[in-house]
């Protein structure tokens, strides 16, 4: 065992243990680590956004490249600060409304194309032009898509035939969720192992 003398690793290791202490119960050490993480990250993102948005996307294009039409975006951004006063708070609704509406209009066509039209196209197949395995696989996919869509059909009570069909749909969903759960748990375990490796190797030097 050879403890490191690197202060950066000591800080990282102690804060790792401070966060892990939450597994026992909420305590002052965890609170300290939590507040520090929240405070540091808020400050970090404030600076990062200032440079990536205000400086790079507003100051440089407007005042250096002469793209004056971008001032409109800058004004909308400044209007957001009207929230700070109760009397002028109503002004901030306009940039929010503009942002939500403009972005919705921008993404709806691409959502429809990628998430609906192209997926519908991919589900259409000719079983006679496929091998038996491929046709079987495509059929399972089709049954899964249709029954799952019908599970999310809200205009009729799940009774009679629809009850059975939607039950098949939810079964498909649960099989998918089960597979995702296992996959994600494996990912989390590997993250935990990575953290322990850091403690054992970089900090304590138990593992060389």
């Amino acid at each position, binding site marked *: 065992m050879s403890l490191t003398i690197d202060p950066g690793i000591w800080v990282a290791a102690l804060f790792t243990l401070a966060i892990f202490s*939450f597994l026992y119960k909420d305590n002052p050490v965890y609170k300290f680590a939590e507040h520090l993480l929240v405070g540091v990250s*808020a400050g970090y993102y404030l600076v990062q956004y200032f440079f990536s948005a205000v400086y790079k996307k507003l100051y440089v294009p407007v005042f250096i490249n002469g793209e004056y039409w971008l001032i409109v975006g800058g004004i909308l951004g400044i209007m957001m600060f009207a929230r700070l006063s109760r009397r002028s708070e109503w002004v901030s609704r306009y940039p929010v409304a503009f942002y939500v509406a403009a*972005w919705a209009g921008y993404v709806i066509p691409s959502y429809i194309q990628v998430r609906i039209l*192209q997926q*519908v196209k991919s589900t*259409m197949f000719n079983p006679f032009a496929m091998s038996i395995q491929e046709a079987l696989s495509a059929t399972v996919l089709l049954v899964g898509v249709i029954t799952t869509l019908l599970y999310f059909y809200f205009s009729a*009570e799940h009774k009679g035939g629809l009850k059975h069909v939607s039950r098949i749909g939810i079964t498909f969903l649960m099989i998918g969720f089960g597979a995702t759960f296992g996959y994600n748990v494996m990912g989390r375990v590997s993250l935990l192992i990575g953290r322990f490796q850091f403690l054992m190797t970089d900090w304590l030097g138990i593992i060389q």
Partner: protein
Amino acid sequence: MDRYEIWRFDGERGAAAFRISLPDTVGLMDYLESSPRVKMVVPGSEDSVQVSKMVAPGSRDTVYVSKVAEPDVEDSVYVDSRLSRDRQYQHLLVAHGGNLTLPYGLTAPESPRRQWIKYSTINILVAVAAFLASMLVLVTRARRGAKLFIRRIAGLEAVEEAVGRATEMGRPILYVPGLDPMDEVATVAAINILGQVAKKAGEYETRLVVPNRDPIVMAVAQQVVRESYSAVGKPYLYRQEDVFYVTYSQFGFAAAVAGLMMRDRPATNFFMGHFYAESLVLAETGNATGAIQIAGTDSDAQLPFFITACDYTLIGEELYAGSVYLSREPLLLGTLKAQDYAKVVIITAMLAGIVLSMINPGIAESFKSLFR
């Protein structure tokens, strides 16, 4: 079909896109998004295929095309967005292998032209228009008092019970509207449900706490909670400090909300919206505090965690339907009905495509092209 054809020449943005079909012997090995060349491999050798452009027709000087949109060899799309309307261009596809250079094709000289309508996506316009038309009809019907049925959704039936429980216990309600910004559908749905939950919290005079990761979502959430309290005649219940910003850091936010759950011990937790890896941290901590938990997300990777750790979970579109279910507002009701009818159309289209493929593949291909 030519191995190399222009399928869109978009003058509005000064961009050209090409659909390229390559011989079967060439397979994609790698593509470099930041590089102007596409690296391909002919089995058994280290050959490559590049897309270049000639700025002046017939010129010997070529410039690499900068972006590869799709890595699919059978149907690759290459976009060159650095074109000017006052010049002519020819695009060239060339394979390089050892000392051998093999040209695959050369486009005719073209200048970008202004196009007011993007005809390649007209099918999306038709789909949106049809959906909007059906929505308007259904909204009008709902406003005239027609009874539009919506089936029972268990997770939403429990909202009243969950708010009532917090009131009885004298503890606050925690509502997390996901981690995504306001442009995400799940966040919009989460904010709509927040409005309904805030109304119920206002009726019962129970404190509602809403931590936020995104400042714009926070601004909208504050507005929605205030209006909901006003709608039930209790505007004085609104406290701006209860709808607050935490941090944009994913795990900083998760740590803060977990700490809040342990300290304030809310009786009811709502996790609605889009979540990432922090979902299990939030749901597990809430479970450990003994709170009744209702989650709803369209994130398929996080749904399993909510299903295991929460009392009720709204799966995918149930989240979108949530605000309709709770409010029964005609506008939202009409939208949900239109979505349901769209699902029927989609199922019908899929089955029609399969039947056509079996009967007449030629017609089926034309039919499929409507869904490009």
